[in-house]
């Protein structure tokens, strides 16, 4: 036959195997609802509105007197810092003898739509940090801000420098003008006033849209193909489902907080120019004089390194370190690379600058 199509038998076998894996998948993987993302035991030690302050139970004796408070991002939830026992940022720090607290922003509803930077920084954050200072009898704490939590932590440290012993920022959103990501491109062209005035809070659906246009073919096609190919690898599957559950769950962002974040950081670039006001006070980055560690990832397609790095040059700290890693936004905090390279360097930096 002249029109006969020749197919490699190995290719056919691969295709059949993939189909078999797809059919077997429900028996080999848990559904998102069956997964509990809370791994490391913790206690809720302080609550205010929907915000919770978590204190993680140390598996080893506390080595450092200075506690660490983590201000998580406003997008998705804190579980990525504790996503898998072998990839947990929090567990690693606890094993180094660091006393870890974390601010969980909760799920804002329409009643929270008028909350802005003032409420978050001068209210929730300040109250959580005061609580930790009082409970641990420490004058100052170490503060870590991840992603948008990095923006909040930067503002906080500029307004309350005496309460912060060490500031560590992981992929912080600082200089929107230099941000070269798709997220920043959309943020710069958004009528944020109309959005907040009409909808109240920034809805999760719109956040999902923004995530869906970040590497849509790799993330929307290849990632799932690899999942089915590796369906018999239990560890791979569990990690995949855990991360997918984390990705699919993002809370709304309070309207006024979102308005100021987009305007002051992405559209008018007031934070890096020292012209941002929070609760009537000017935020001057020169007030940040405590030791500073900034961590950025070259493959970060959510917050580009150019957006984060200017903080290193804007502060007045004499002891400051900038670390650039060959990974991505999530890879920096929840990956094997993070455990082998990022975390040991982070913990060492913190230990050297904390009270024993």
């Amino acid at each position, binding site marked *: 036959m002249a029109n006969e199509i020749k197919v490699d038998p190995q290719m056919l076998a691969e295709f059949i195997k993939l189909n078999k894996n797809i059919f077997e998948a429900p028996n080999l993987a848990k559904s998102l609802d069956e997964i509990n993302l809370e791994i490391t035991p913790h206690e809720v030690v302080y609550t205010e509105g929907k915000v919770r302050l978590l204190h993680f139970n140390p598996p080893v004796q506390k080595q450092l007197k200075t506690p660490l408070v983590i201000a998580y991002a406003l997008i998705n939830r804190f579980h990525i810092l504790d996503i898998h026992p072998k990839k947990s940022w929090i567990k690693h720090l606890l094993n180094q003898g660091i006393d870890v607290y974390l601010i969980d922003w909760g799920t804002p509803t329409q009643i929270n*739509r008028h909350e802005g930077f003032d409420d978050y920084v001068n209210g929730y954050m300040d109250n959580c940090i005061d609580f930790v200072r009082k409970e641990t009898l420490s004058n100052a704490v170490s503060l870590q801000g991840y992603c948008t939590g990095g923006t909040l932590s930067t503002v906080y440290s500029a307004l309350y420098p005496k309460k912060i012993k060490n500031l560590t920022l992981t992929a912080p959103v600082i200089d929107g003008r230099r941000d*070269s990501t798709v997220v920043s491109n959309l943020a710069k062209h958004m009528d944020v006033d109309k959005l907040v005035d009409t909808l109240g809070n920034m809805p999760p659906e719109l956040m999902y849209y923004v995530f869906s*246009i970040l590497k849509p073919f790799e993330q929307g096609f290849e990632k799932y193909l690899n999942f089915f190919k590796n369906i018999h690898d239990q560890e791979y599957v569990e990690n995949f489902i855990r991360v997918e559950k984390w990705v699919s769950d993002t809370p709304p962002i309070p309207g006024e907080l979102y308005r100021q974040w987009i305007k002051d950081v992405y559209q008018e670039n007031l934070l890096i120019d020292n012209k941002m006001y929070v609760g009537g006070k000017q935020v001057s980055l020169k007030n940040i004089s405590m030791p500073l560690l900034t961590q950025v990832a070259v493959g970060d397609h959510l917050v580009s390194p150019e957006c984060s790095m200017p903080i290193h040059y804007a502060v007045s700290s004499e002891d400051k370190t900038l670390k650039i890693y060959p990974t991505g936004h999530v890879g920096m905090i929840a990956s094997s690379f993070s455990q082998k390279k990022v975390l040991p360097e982070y913990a060492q930096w913190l230990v050297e600058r904390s009270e024993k």
Partner: protein
Amino acid sequence: MSIPPDLKKSLANYKHNSLFWTDLLYLMSNRQQSLAATGPFRKFAINAKTLSTETIEMNEDMTEFNTRLSEYYKQLTDTWNEAQKEYSRKVPELPNDVEHMEASKRIWIDIFENYFTRLFDSAEFAENFGQLVSSELEIAKHWNNMASTLLESANMPTKKEMDDVYKELHSLRKRVAKLEKIANKGGTPNGQ
């Protein structure tokens, strides 16, 4: 890209005519309506004009929304076609073994990822997307106004009224927190 002037003019005429007749019919039937609609339901009859106005204005915004949505899909389709052409140039023949299949999949993903990231990074895409969301929000505003009219007619709190309550609660919470801080420090409202 916006609504053509001719279409704008005809929409304005349509709006004027509709509102004129809504008004006139309302005035003409006022007596009969008063007789027919009694008690709380009369409020709904009075508010009926708001619903017509909102519907007409929403149709105007739908035109803008459709224009932006068409442009959005055009941008996606054009980019897909360009990426597909590039892929066909690079991989002219169907892969017929595992190795070629893997390689061509990688090429396909890389090409499409590059073309689409370039699109999403462009000012044209971001501007149109911003306008698309904006026009959708205009439609949402009309929808909110209509819902508020219905809620008001049923003597239920409207979105605006609820928002006023939220605003008041927010301000009260701040005042209480401030007073708590002063009380804990044993000071006065002046900070002394």
